[in-house]
């Protein structure tokens, strides 16, 4: 665990660089995290995906690229376009939810 200042506040991050507590998340922090990950602007579509991810995680669902592709919010191709190079990793990080557990 480490602390980092982002968007004017100091918050805890876990060893993978994800927010330790979802309560710390705000739209400003999401925007700053997006910039750090090479996404200059969060569009309406980005926010829809973020909202969907947060809702699913709150309901205890395990996320996957396939699941997001079938969400009706975006298809897989769009998801890759919105969050290039590792869309699930980037999108969950920006959404402030825990890192999806990888498969063995």
């Amino acid at each position, binding site marked *: 665990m480490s602390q980092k200042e982002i968007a004017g506040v100091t918050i805890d991050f876990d060893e993978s660089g994800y927010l330790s507590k979802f309560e710390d998340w705000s739209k400003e922090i999401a925007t700053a995290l997006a910039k750090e990950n090479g996404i200059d602007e969060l569009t309406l579509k980005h926010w829809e995906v973020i909202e969907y991810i947060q809702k699913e995680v709150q309901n205890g669902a395990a996320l*996957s690229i396939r699941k997001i592709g079938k969400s009706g919010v975006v298809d897989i191709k769009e998801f890759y376009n919105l969050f290039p190079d590792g869309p699930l990793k980037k999108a969950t990080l920006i959404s402030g939810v825990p890192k999806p*557990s990888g498969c063995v």
Partner: protein
Amino acid sequence: MKKIVILGAGSAGTMIVNKLVKMIPEDEISITIIDHSSIHYYQPGFLFIPFGIYSKNMVYKPRRDYLPNNVDFIQTKIDLIDVEKNQIILEDKKKVKYDFLIIATGSKIAPEEIDGLTGPGWKKTIFDFYTPEGAVDLAHFLRYWKGGKMVVNIAEMPIKCPVAPLEFVFLADWWFTEQGIRDKVEIEYVTPLSGAFTKPIASKYLGEIVERKNIKIVPDFNVSSVDSEKKIISSYEGKELDYDLLVSIPTNMGADVIGKSGLGDDLNFIPTEKHTLVSKIKDNVFIAGDATNLQSSKAGSVAHFEAEILIKNLIRRMDDMEMMPEFDGHANCYIESGFGKGILIDFNYDTEPLPGKFPIPGFGPFSLLQETKMNHWGKMTFRWIYWNILMRGGEPPLEAQMSLKGKWKV
């Protein structure tokens, strides 16, 4: 008298039913096991078929031979699992009631999930080795292949036996060498993972072996479609790769009936409590083997370690006792690495594969995360152990939980 129904008589279902009849007296329970086919396949053997090491008739036996006599075996497809009414509806609409249900319906490949994979090139220049038919067709193709570029592609995780694709390229390197055409074959290992394996230490170790064998790894490749006319696979990231021979490990999914019954996730795997193996659907339903949505490997060794804990919890449930959270995600896998050698890995949810000696610390005879001849013999002996010990409900001298003894810190 309690009625237990087991769905699936593969590795997990067969081990569980044989252990159950040993542990619970016959007058206390009745057991019904249901499977759609009469053949039990030794699935680890499929890997050897493309290279002529095993033939198809070395990898199967009649299911009934491995089921206890006092167990009712129904060979039929299942139409629906109705957990509300505690009943299974069979294909002919007959109903089978249960008090306790164990779902061990496994996983299978779903090549139709990848756009174009089953197009005109399927079985001509595109093969799988996760089915006996696929492995036999690939053996026939390889026998007469003159060489070219072989791409081995994992479509998406999770897959059954996550090390099998690596074993396949290791064996292919050996086999093409034996055939005298290794210099005419390019081997590419194309994976959605960021390296050879999922866990860092093993990934580094295995990655070095891959490199030494002159196999090219293409990481972070999430296949979106296959064009078998042009012989090109494309990724969602917009990359393209050409091939002469595509060996695909397609998307793996749970049984269709899981989806139809509304019990699974988007890949038809069933939400399961990770330490107790109770389903998250209902507390009289237990899940075993590949059918779970757990982050453990989909492998026979995992099913074997699960079996003991699942049965313990089933008995405790019958006696109204609390569940024991004892399953730690333990997996133990031989990795055949070609030229008569093998590697062994032993790991669980929290501890990644580490080097060391196994099962006796400091001695072995097997070596963890190292390439040895002994490990290869372990793998070859395993077929006998599978049929004669494991599938009879017997126990090799291993604890269900992983041990750190004999493992080295790195």
